[in-house]
């Protein structure tokens, strides 16, 4: 029984892990600097922000929804946080605290809007978040007067350059979030409801649950994750800009899908999402080291997304067989 369960879990999660390892092995041999400490640190830094956004996106996709607004909301978060942190009226310590808080609140509020509108009027989140994509981008440009903000307090800039146990601080933040959210999804009542609603919302409602509250919460979590990603972005680049984050939603969705989460909802895992984000990051980095240009890399990334989903349909068939013969 336990052996079976382990095989089952391996089948469910390991496919994507094996793919990641294989890609790494290829690059280690093909690209001379790929395995160097500095490059590894680069990769960790590069995948962190996408990982955090993709974690939030996983919650929404598990419910059969989607959030197209994450890139724009990220820009809005950084602008609000940037204006707070550069405010001369506040002492540096307070400014930093308030900025972090502001970024989280702005992200969560955008998520609340997305969730509330799509649930209250039963509109597909694709449309609502497409609207939010424009709203948040416009708001970011409006508030900042389309300026890029620099000159953050030193304490903040220094934090971004720190390493913990030799790992970049923002990577540690991303991993912490993956672990916490993973525990929530797998062990908490909230997580159970997310999977259950994603599979059959009506059955959950008729079992005596207020499904709408859970669904809106998922959008709020997604927005909150974007808020965290906003702070990480500022830590990394020491700036806030109303035009950053364009196309980030697609990278996040790609990470979730490569990670094996079903777009229909109800099936998937955050470990998968993390591995998905890693594959995208490693590919981008490795191909660049091999001297491949931007355009060609985009083609390869696209092919990988399609291939991952095709492989996934076969994997699901095997898993289904496994269930049937259990």
């Amino acid at each position, binding site marked *: *029984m336990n052996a079976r*369960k382990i095989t089952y879990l391996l089948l469910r999660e390991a496919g994507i892990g094996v793919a990641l390892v294989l890609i790494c092995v290829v690059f280690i041999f093909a690209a001379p600097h790929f395995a160097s400490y500095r490059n590894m640190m680069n990769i960790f830094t590069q995948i962190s922000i996408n990982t955090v956004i993709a974690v939030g996106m996983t919650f929404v996709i598990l419910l059969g929804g989607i959030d197209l607004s994450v890139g724009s909301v990220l820009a809005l978060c950084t602008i609000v946080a940037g204006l707070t942190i550069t405010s001369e009226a506040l002492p540096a310590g307070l400014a930093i605290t308030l900025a972090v808080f502001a970024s989280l609140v702005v992200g969560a509020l955008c998520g609340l809007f997305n969730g509330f509108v799509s649930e209250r009027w039963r509109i597909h989140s694709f449309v609502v978040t497409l609207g939010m994509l424009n709203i948040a981008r416009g708001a970011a440009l409006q508030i900042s007067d389309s300026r890029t903000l620099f000159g953050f307090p030193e304490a903040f800039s220094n934090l971004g350059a720190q390493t913990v146990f030799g790992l970049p601080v923002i990577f540690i933040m991303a991993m912490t979030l993956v672990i916490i959210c993973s525990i929530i999804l797998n*062990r*908490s*009542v*909230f997580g*159970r*409801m997310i*999977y*259950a609603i994603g*599979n*059959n919302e*009506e*059955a*959950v*409602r*008729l*079992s*005596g*649950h*207020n499904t709408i509250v859970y669904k809106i919460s998922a959008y709020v979590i997604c927005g909150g994750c974007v808020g965290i990603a906003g702070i990480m972005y500022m830590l990394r680049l020491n700036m806030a800009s109303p035009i950053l984050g364009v196309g980030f939603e697609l990278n996040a969705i790609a990470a979730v899908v490569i990670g094996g989460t079903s777009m229909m909802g*109800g*099936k998937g895992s955050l470990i998968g999402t993390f591995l998905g984000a890693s594959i995208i990051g490693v590919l981008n980095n490795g191909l660049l080291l091999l001297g491949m240009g931007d355009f060609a890399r985009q083609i390869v990334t696209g092919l990988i997304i399609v291939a991952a989903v095709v492989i996934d349909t076969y994997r699901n068939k095997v898993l289904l*067989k496994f*269930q*049937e*013969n*259990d």
Partner: protein
Amino acid sequence: MNSNENILELRGITKKFPGVIALKNVDLNIRNGEVHVLVGENGAGKSSLIKVLCGIYTPEEGEMTYRGKVYTPRTPFDAIEAGVRVVYQEFNLLSYLSVAENIFFDNLPRKGGFVDFKTLYRKTEELLNVVGLNISPKTPVELLGVAQMQLIEIAKAISSKSELLILDEPTATLSSKEISMLFGIISRLKSEGVTIIYISHHLQEVFEIGDRISVLRNGENAGTHSTSNISIPQIVKMMVGKSMDEEYPFRAEIKPGETILSVKNLRCKGKPSPISFEVRKGELLGVAGLVGSGRTDAMRAIFGADSRDSGEIILNGKTLTINKPKDAVQNGICLLTEDRKTQGLILEMPCYVNVTLTDLQAVTQYGFINNDIERKATDKLVNELAIKTPSIDQWVGNLSGGNQQKMVLAKWLFRETDVLIFDEPTRGIDVGAKYEIYLLLWKLAAAGKGIIIVSSDLPEMLGICHRIIVFSDGIITGEAVRENFDQEEILTMAYEGYMQEDTV
């Protein structure tokens, strides 16, 4: 046994799946022009047999002859070519297309590369007359009721040449009036020389339309008999492998107590007439009526699944505010919905998730689910209800129909409730499982719960209920208590609401 007499012969058909033998060495002869009834418990192999006949499954062993020739369909298309059509239990209709387009979907009449709508509508109208449906061929299928969809499926099956028609539980969703109409269609087809294989759980039907009957048990043919020399108890015995003393248990020693739930002046959304009734502790209250008579709507409104315009719901003397299912569940009222697959269960999740869904608080510590408690509680219920599943990690969707229904029961037994409303609790499940569910209903009654049973199976309600109320066209037209149960009187009440409407 000469080949002129038999349209279809099966010899030693065996179909295996990993770990299960679905069909074991099945021999079966279908005579030309007969109505051959196929019965058996869920999981006895009826569906597998159909799938073999229509080319979805290929048997590992055995051979089939159709009209004296070897018959080896590889795809459903081969079967249709040969003249074998199946009307499945689940509908395969495209809801946004018209009735006509659905019926002739495989075979649209054409004129110069375009659909010839004139011919299409004319042919459809002819077919609709045959199946007794008085609707326009242009009606979109999504506007039709379940019974009408069933008739469209049949029209579709007879639209092209079909010599052997297989009907998989066609009456599961029909009311008695529609059933008699269907039987009319079947005899008409029979007189036109069509051979029919008819699958059903309703044993009474067998005698009304069947010429011969075959019973499947555990993948084997337990015997084929002419319906004129076999009785229902004999069939049941063949199906379950043992004799059953009584079809419907009634425990006279359990007497209803005081009123537990009363519903006063309930008006479902958009319905003019109010409904009032009560249930008592330990009472099995039957709710009869035709499909679409407002029975299910009323139950859903009480439970808060659909909104209502007015009405008081009083439980144990306390007036409740019920606006959503959560309110009802927290006050101790539960509804076991008619459609277990879409509304009752999460098919692609394990048993234990389904069971504890009604009361997650009971298995939660500090916001996190305690897997041990959850699994133990599920194990206990699975054993108590004798649910057949290899493990509680199994997806509920992989269980048989009867076991899925028991799973719905298990999830509500997991939560403490006062009133249980069952909507069609025994639809589409076999005799053995039905009996077990009746016994469970009695166990709940003995524990002092109020039990409401909505069912289209009138003999079943006459068999197990203390009292029956009858819905007709959205109102309650009558009530009968056990001492005065009379099937005809209840049927009359069921049509009463519609009669009044006609005279106005």
